[in-house]
């Protein structure tokens, strides 16, 4: 359940950056090949956020598709899993997208 550690990292990072703010929305990017389950992060966020600046905040998660780059034919293609095969049949594929975990932005209330 690394999602708890991941969620705690998100909250710690936001608390460090914006210690005196009331956060109303957190925009996260969880790539489909990142190895992190968005639903588990949602579950942890509510629990781990209690008593912090993100308590009660809405979590907005985007999940970019994976991207594979084929060494055989040079094409980039959508990769649904880390074992992606290029449409040309080659398995010599490097994953170049969809593996990132990013805190993109937060929306902060002005009433504090």
């Amino acid at each position, binding site marked *: *359940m*690394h999602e708890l*550690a*991941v969620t705690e*990292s*998100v909250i*710690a*990072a*936001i608390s*460090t*950056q*914006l210690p005196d*703010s009331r956060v*109303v*929305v957190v925009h*996260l990017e969880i790539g489909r090949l990142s*190895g*992190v389950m968005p639903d588990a992060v949602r579950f942890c966020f509510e629990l781990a956020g209690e008593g912090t600046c993100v308590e009660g905040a809405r979590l907005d998660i985007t999940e970019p598709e994976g991207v594979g780059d084929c060494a055989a034919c040079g094409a980039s293609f959508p990769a649904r*899993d*880390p*074992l992606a095969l290029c449409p040309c049949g080659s*398995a*010599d594929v490097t994953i170049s997208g969809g593996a*990132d*975990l*990013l*805190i*993109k*932005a*937060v*929306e*902060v*209330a*002005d*009433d504090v």
Partner: protein
Amino acid sequence: MCETCGCDGGDAARLTTLTAPGDGPGHAAGHVHVHDPVPVPVHGHGHGHDDGHVVTLGQKVLARNDDLAVRNRAWLAERGIAALNVMSSPGSGKTTLLERTVADLSPDRPISVIEGDQETLLDARRLAAAGARTVQVNTGAGCHLDAAMVAGALAALGPPDGSTVFVENVGNLVCPALFDLGERARVVLMSVTEGDDKPLKYPHMFRGADVLLLNKTDLLPHVDFDMDACRAAARRLCPGLRVLPVSATRGDGLGAWYDWLDEVTAAP
């Protein structure tokens, strides 16, 4: 509350040092924590919400861990210490492999161990008895070691310059794959009782491996395990991966493992 610094160490990992026989007295315990949060610059902000404003962060979620891992790597490099992150599911034989490795090699080279488990000092005691100075990190509810825990454990361990440090991660093929500890190489272990399709089921772990040890080969006559299929599955994820069949209990194949260790620890 931590008596040393006054921080709330309640959720932190617990740390206990065990000395090897003949290593002199010594016992230290404490919790692992790192105090200086790593600030990441805020890149700017724009307005986009009626009752507030948007702050753009564009920050990696694991930025703090990754930054600490970079510091660990630099600390180790300055001292010529090779740290190896050993990972597997529970029961694959990590501790037995390390026990044997310490017993076989430690007369010629100093080896110390950072031992990760949720609870108990059982594995640390085994490795200390085998001859390695060992720090046990008990993660409590935690399912993996992170770079902060390893930083604390290295400070407690004080490994000599030019030595080898094994980090035996918490038994788990999922979470440890995500956390850079500052290691020089990642050793992934699986046993032949686990099924030759395991790499395909846990791709993140196997994709990041530098070497794969297939342990418990002494049990091959009793289990349905296709060595070639497992090798092929692992190499689909990690082309060119070194795969070494071993039996840590019987000693089979350990020569190739020690050769690999020589290679990876010799490189600066």
